[in-house]
Every structure is written in structure tokens, then in C-alpha cells.
């Protein structure tokens, strides 16, 4: 029963959304694919009347570029580190949180707090916590004035238990790649926890308590209850947080800007921690739309593959 009055009314109501989507979503999809396959396409030169030949040079150039490989490696590394760590930690917190009564609401609120923060702003706080004021060359500690609270804590335990001082150059000039990655991992995990805890706790609370009573009557140990009942019954939620975690991880950018600034690395090594998204924006700012488009399509392809892979695995593993 489609009456014509409803027809034009529907299109009227939808028109603002459709117009905006055509301009800012549909056209970009087409145009990005077009630019990606025009060799060395540049917006500036195109405006100057230059024409570009069709080809896949953008892709080959991007894939061969050391800078891109570095970005890809950083992104992958951060993904592979942060997604499992944050998922496991969130699962542990959600399960323990679900098992207590007093303080549950308070703690739940605390664990959600990092969600409503600005990742640039809090990144600056993390930078302050890891930062060392003064020169730091490992041996001459006299020059260090403020070692940052994290170093203070490490030092406290180190001198108490081993009698040795231990200070680490996390993010300053001369810091090592490994330390940089550790800092980023800590920050990204801290940032990723609230969402995962929220979803997993919601999932846990919807599991019928009688499964646990039944397991208790049968004398099931806590570890077995966790692996044989909780994890399988939670598997749809787990799959969800892992997939969204990977998608978010591949688009990591602002948390690095938060800690390292637009330098994307320690002061002496610019762009050391740059990511895929960062690479796309850099290419864009250099008026290299062809390469930016190619990189964006590669990013899309990776996300698609990872998501499909995840879905495939969870089809086999996720119960019901």
C-alpha cells in the first residue's frame, strides 16, 4: 500500500540527509577510488590543468615507501599489543566486578571514567607522568631534576628491593623505540578499558545466575567455571570488543599526538611512531591526494580483512 503522498513526503524528509550524504560520503568514496588509480594525482596540479594517467603507481609507491612501512609496522604492533592486553584486563576486571556486591556501582563508575576524556588532553598528562626534566644520558644522573612520577615509582621499588637506581628514558630525546611503544601501549590500554569493561560487564550481567549455581553444586573450580562457562557464554561480547578493538587500533592516531605531539615521536626522531592514519594526513597535507587515497584504500582493505577474519573465527568459536 504505497500511496503517492507518502512517497514524496518520505523523500522530502530524507532530502537533507541524502544531499549531505551524496556530497560528503558517496562522492568521496567514488573520488577516492578514482584518485587512487590516477598515477601521482595531486589536487594542486589537477587545478592547474594537468592530467594524470590511469595506473596503480600510487599503490606501488606507497607500499614501497619506507615511511609507509614504518607506519604500518607501528600500527600493527600497537594493535597486536593493545587489543589482547586490554581485552584480557577488561575481562578480568568485568568478571571480578560482577562477583562483588559492595562497592560494585562505585567501581563501575570509576572504571568508566576514562571514556569521557579527551585523548589529546589526557595524553598530555601521561606525557607529564613519563617525562624527565633535565638531560638524561643514562650515567650522569646529576642532571636529572625531575624524573617523572613513573620513574619515581620504579626507582622507589628498585632501590628498595635491589638497592640499585633504575630510571628509564621513556619519551625524551634519545629514548628507545621499545620504551616509546611501551608508553603508547600503556596509554592506549588505559583508554580502551572503559568501553570494553562496559560491554563485557553488560554481557556478564545478562548471563543467567543459575548456570553458576549449577556449577557450584557440581563443585566446579573457579578457573573451570571461568573457561568453560563464563568465556563461552560471553563469547559474542568478546568477539564484539575484539573486532571493534582492532578497527579502532588500525585507526590509532590521536593518542600518539596526545603523548608525542605532532612530532609523532621523540624530539630527535620525528615521525618515529607515525601510523597509517598519520601517513594519510601527511600525504594529504603535501597535496599528494593520489597516494593518500591509495593508503586509505589499503587501510580499508586491512580493516575489512581483519574484520572478516575475526567474524570467521568467531563463527567457529562463538557459541550460539
Amino acid at each position, binding site marked *: 500500500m504505497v500511496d503517492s503522498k507518502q512517497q514524496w513526503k518520505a523523500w522530502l524528509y530524507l532530502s537533507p540527509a541524502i544531499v549531505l550524504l551524496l556530497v560528503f560520503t558517496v562522492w568521496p568514496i567514488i573520488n577516492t577510488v578514482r584518485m587512487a588509480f590516477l598515477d601521482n594525482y595531486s589536487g594542486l596540479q589537477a587545478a592547474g590543468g594537468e592530467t594524470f594517467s590511469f595506473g596503480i603507481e600510487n599503490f606501488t609507491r606507497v607500499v614501497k615507501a619506507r615511511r609507509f612501512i614504518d607506519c604500518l609496522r607501528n600500527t600493527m604492533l600497537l594493535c597486536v599489543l593493545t587489543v589482547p592486553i586490554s581485552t584480557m584486563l577488561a575481562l578480568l576486571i568485568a568478571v571480578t566486578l560482577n562477583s562483588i556486591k559492595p562497592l560494585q556501582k562505585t567501581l563501575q563508575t570509576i572504571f568508566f571514567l576514562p571514556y*569521557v576524556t*579527551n585523548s589529546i588532553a589526557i595524553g598530555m598528562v601521561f606525557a607529564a607522568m613519563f617525562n624527565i626534566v633535565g638531560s638524561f644520558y643514562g650515567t650522569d644522573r646529576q642532571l636529572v631534576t625531575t624524573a617523572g612520577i613513573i620513574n619515581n615509582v620504579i626507582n622507589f621499588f628498585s632501590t628498595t628491593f635491589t638497592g640499585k637506581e633504575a630510571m628509564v628514558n621513556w619519551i625524551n630525546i634519545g629514548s628507545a623505540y621499545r620504551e616509546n611503544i611501551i608508553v603508547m601501549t600503556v596509554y592506549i590500554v588505559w583508554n580502551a578499558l572503559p568501553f570494553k569493561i562496559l560491554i563485557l560487564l553488560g554481557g556478564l550481567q545478562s548471563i543467567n545466575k543459575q548456570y553458576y549455581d549449577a556449577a557450584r553444586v557440581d563443585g566446579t573450580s573457579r578457573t573451570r567455571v571461568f573457561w568453560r562457562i563464563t568465556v563461552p557464554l560471553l563469547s559474542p561480547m568478546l568477539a564484539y570488543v575484539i573486532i571493534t578493538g582492532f578497527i579502532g587500533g588500525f585507526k590509532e592516531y590521536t593518542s600518539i599526538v596526545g603523548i608525542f605531539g605532532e612530532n609523532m615521536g621523540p624530539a630527535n626522531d620525528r615521525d618515529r611512531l607515525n601510523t597509517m592514519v598519520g601517513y594519510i594526513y601527511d600525504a594529504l597535507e603535501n597535496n599528494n591526494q593520489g597516494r593518500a587515497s591509495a593508503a586509505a584504500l589499503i587501510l580499508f582493505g586491512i580493516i575489512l580483512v581483519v574484520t572478516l577474519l575475526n567474524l570467521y573465527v568467531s563463527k567457529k568459536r562463538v557459541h550460539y
Partner: protein
Amino acid sequence: MSDENKEIRNDIKAPKSTADSSYAAKAVMSEKDLKKTAAAQTVMQILVKFLVYAFLIIMAIIVLFPFYWMINSSLKTLSEYREVVPTFWPRKIMFSNYLEAYNAANLGRLFFNTVIVGVVSTLLSLVITVLSAFAFARLEFKGKNLLFAGLLATMMIPGELFTITNYTTVTNLGWRNTYTVLIVPFLVSVFYIYLLRQNFLQIPNELYLAAKVDGTSDIKYLWRVMIPLSLPTLISITILKMMGAWNSYIWPRLVANDEAHRLITNGLRNAFKDTTGDVNYPVQMAAVALVSFPLFLVFVFLRKYIMKGVSRSGIKG
């Protein structure tokens, strides 16, 4: 059949006696052993409870620590901040850091810009979302399902892919360094349309038909029935949209990074370019605290809506 049954019965009974013997072993367990088992259970339970609380409280401290450190640092004098042994509460509380931060980063202007962009884009976005969701939920038109599926498909594509072309588009439109460029490109959110449509679908269609019979106009029906009934979703959308404006960084940095139109996150990052080395951290932390504070207020008062919206969306901001 009966023979078989009998056999089963015997089978069940036979091992039962062996099982019983193990229970019997427990049965002859002396009073002392019984008490021991009971005591072991209690000790185990208390120990586990203790460990669980210890873990959660330590994690909570880790989660909260950056906030505490931000506030602690923001209230110190620079010289106190630089002491080798850190103080865990400032000796002299320096509220002046906040004033200095406010001026240094031109925070007043940044707040103003962000609020303008946030409020305008939220309002327009709500109107567009409500109208589209209504059309998808209540009206019949050709190609409805196809169009809706097409919209959902765009959700799969990472935003970076759009940005490249949009950057050129807004430049050609001459929108660079205006409020428009910060508002218009992101007015339509497919996800919010989807969310609201689901909500609208739960409202019985009979209500709409009844309104039609009474001669109520669509807009009036939307305003009087649909919107009140889906208010929680609309509130969630509003909060997430506002938070999005507050936290957006990449797009504003690309297209509107001038003094007049800069948004809060960019302004903050721009005013304090250095993160490492000898930075005036107390003032920087004061600025960070000022930027974070409105978010905390929103969190304290509207936590319920944020959590509800987030658990259904999984999108930050």
C-alpha cells in the same frame, strides 16, 4: 525391555555403591574433619574475596591516578613540580596556574568556538536524524530497503577515506576557516539514524494511524508522540554529539586551524606544542584540567545516558 531396564537399574545401583563408599568415607569423617573442611571453605572464600577487592582497588587507583596527577601538578608552583622527590599534594596551592593557562591558550575563545560548533551541529543533526528515522520507520516508499541497506554499508568504511575528498570539496566551496566547515560535513550520522529508527519502530504503528484519522500532521505527531517516547535515545545522541565536538581533532586541524575558529582540542595541542623536556607543566596541566572539567560534569550528571548510548554504539565521540 524389562530385562534391559533391570540391567540399567543394576548398573546405576552398582556404581552408586562405589560412589556411596566415597561418600561413606566422608560420612564417617569425624566431627573434627567436618569442621576442618568447613573452615577451609571459609578461609578460601575470604581469601578470594580479599584478592578480588585488592585487584579491583589497585586497578581503580591506576585508572584514577592520571586524573589525580593532573590536578596535583596543576596546583603546584613550577619549582615544586621540579623537585626530585615529588610531593603528593602541593605545599602551596597555585590557583593562578589556571588563570595563566586560560590566558596562554586563549581558552575563552576556544570554549566559545567549541560550544557554538557543538550546539549548532547537534541541533541540526537531531533534526535531520529525526526526519530520516521517521521516514525509514513509518513511511512507505519505493526503494526504502535498498536505500537503508546502502546507508548501513557506508558505516563499514573508515572516515579517513572520506576526509581526503572532503578536504578538497570544502576548499573548493571556500569553506576553509569557517564554522560551516566544522558543522556541515558531519551532520548526518548513519548510525544515529539507525539507532533512532529502531527506537521509532518499537512505537506501535496504530498510534500513527490514529493520529492520521484525527487529522494530526506528521510534524505534530513527531513532536507530540515520537520524540517524547524516544527521548532517552535522543539524549544519548545529543551527549555523544557534543562530546564529539569537544574531542574532535583531526578534521578541525586540517580545515579550520586559525585563531578565530580553532576548537578546544586543537587549541590545547597548539598552545602547548612541547610534551617532553623542560615544559611548564603546572600551567599545561591546569589547561588540561580546564578542558577535561566540562566532560567530568557531563559524566557525573548524565552517566546513565552515556553508558546506554555507548553500549549500543561502540563509537567514541
